[in-house]
């Protein structure tokens, strides 16, 4: 890893990271708040049959248990968008964006192997994702404490949820970086990564709302993010292993592609 590049990347993204982390913490604090104040009403509505069962289980979460509320906050589009600012936006722009702007020229002119450049940016991407996911859980923890419902979950398992989220969005970031080192322009790298995220998300939500489509869920990366299960029954080694495997494949692909590819003069 190159320390100068690492510190420069952290500094350049510090403000953006702060804003996204605050937004994620605020969003994370909202779910326990809603649960603490309206959880029982939601349960009554659910039991009355007014709300279809599937709608109450959006993305594997619910609003009448604290683990379910945290899970629904995690899988909600707002959380996905905020997490994707770094997992998709930063990762895809890290190389392809610099190449498109032409600034990669001066970076590559330094005596730093391409693998080191890639690895440094990968570490930065994982740190950004870790902070954003961490901010959500800190917000949720503080809100649950303030609202007096923290006793409903084993608080130490929030760390396992954090690891689960980090593995999911880390895998997405690794895919984004692999796309980034493969293209000369940002749009194809961004397009491919976004397509993977959107299709994956669509399959997961579709499967959670429509029982006949449940068979599609294993093809979604989001299927392997299960905060409710982690907080109630414990972590699934298979889920964690699969997400780590996807990240590893993307990392190996990038490490093979980037040093070998030709970088012609930017047009």
């Amino acid at each position: 890893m190159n320390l100068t590049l690492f510190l420069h990347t952290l500094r350049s993204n510090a403000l953006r990271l702060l804003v996204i982390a605050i937004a994620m913490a605020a969003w994370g604090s909202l779910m326990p708040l809603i649960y603490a104040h309206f959880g029982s009403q939601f349960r009554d509505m659910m039991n009355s049959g007014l709300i279809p069962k599937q709608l109450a289980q959006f993305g594997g979460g619910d609003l009448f248990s604290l683990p379910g509320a945290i899970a629904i906050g995690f899988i909600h589009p707002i959380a996905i968008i905020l997490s994707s600012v770094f997992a998709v936006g930063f990762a895809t722009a890290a190389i392809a964006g610099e190449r498109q702007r032409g600034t990669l020229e001066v970076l590559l002119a330094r005596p730093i192997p391409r693998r080191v450049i890639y690895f440094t940016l990968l570490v930065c991407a994982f740190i950004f994702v870790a902070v954003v996911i961490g901010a959500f859980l800190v917000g949720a923890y503080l809100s649950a404490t303030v609202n007096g419902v923290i006793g409903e979950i084993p608080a130490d398992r929030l760390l396992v949820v954090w690891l689960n989220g980090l593995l999911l969005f880390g895998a997405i970031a690794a895919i984004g970086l692999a796309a980034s080192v493969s293209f000369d322009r940002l749009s194809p790298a961004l397009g491919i990564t976004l397509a993977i995220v959107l299709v994956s998300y669509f399959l997961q939500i579709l499967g959670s709302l429509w029982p006949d489509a449940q068979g599609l869920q294993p093809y979604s990366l989001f299927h392997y993010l299960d905060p409710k299960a982690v907080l109630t029954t414990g972590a699934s080694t298979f889920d964690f292993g699969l997400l780590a495997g996807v990240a590893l494949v993307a990392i190996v692909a990038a490490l093979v592609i980037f040093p070998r590819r030709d970088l012609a003069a930017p047009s």
Partner: protein
Amino acid sequence: MDAIETTGLTKRYGHGGPPIHRPGRKQAPEAPPALDDLAVTVREGEVFGFLGPNGAGKSTMIRLLLGYLHPTAGRATVLGFDSVRQSVQIRRRVGYLPGGIALYDSLSGERLLDYLGGLTGRPSTRRAALLDRLELSERTMQRPVRDYSRGMRQKIGIIQALQHDPDLAILDEPTEGLDPLMQRAFYDILGDLKRVGRTIFFSSHVLSEVERVCDRVAIVRSGRLVALEDVAALLKRRKRNVEMRLAGPAPKLAGVKGVSGIHQSDGRLTLSLEGDVAPFLAAIAGAWITDLTIEPAHLEEAFLEYYADDDARERRGLAGATVMPLREEPAQPQRAQPKPPPTEAPPDAAPKSKPARAKQADTP
């Protein structure tokens, strides 16, 4: 040890292998090489000009030297290191100014130079002197790069390439965007670097600056080397334009060594003069000359002559053959001369991919 040495360096974009033949299917034409069998040697301590029009292969050559591209064939060594396997070692000792440089706009000039200097890992020993020479004040360096003019960006580009005192500077169109005063300052910087034994590889299409600062020059066209010579020798062999006004009979110049293209009208005599001037001066001694002008040979004329010769050959279907630039051959209309196959090239033309003319010139 040579600073740069390339042998048979070839770069073809798109695919590595030969086109696959599929019977019954139209064969896709093979892309022409961006660089074709280039053999160049740059000696340590010299200022080497790499000339050619846009798209000739100048940037491809530089990118191959720095390991941005991988050669399709041949090899290159820079400061003794292989350009493919040891590109990091090369970049540790090289300063590179890319053509049309892009910089990190959000950083100030000073932060940018600090950042790039930090990535290089060598102390920026020349920065203060370069800032002074290129007239970049401390106040200017505190401003964000986004506020800089094109010339100021180019100055920053020059400084980032040279601030760590590299053994070899590879500069792609370095005076682009600089005003004449700053161009002069830049030439002075190059002079200083040369005096302390640094090597400069200088890509440009501004012929006057190459003529001014370079010891040797290579000329490329369509990825092929068409000439590699000392600038002084090149200029010496170029024809000078001579004009004289006469107050009496014209001196007898026909047959005088080096004199050609004599034209006389209304007491004005013009001619071309090549090589040693002594026979010409002896021939005009005693003539009634009221005015005499001998225009110095410019590299531009030499350059255009190379290209004119190459054009003529291309029109006659000898695009692959290396030209003999000093021979004047009249261009033949294409219809009058059917395109012969390459094997029918005249004996003075070297076979394709063997730039014999250039290689000979390169031999000390």
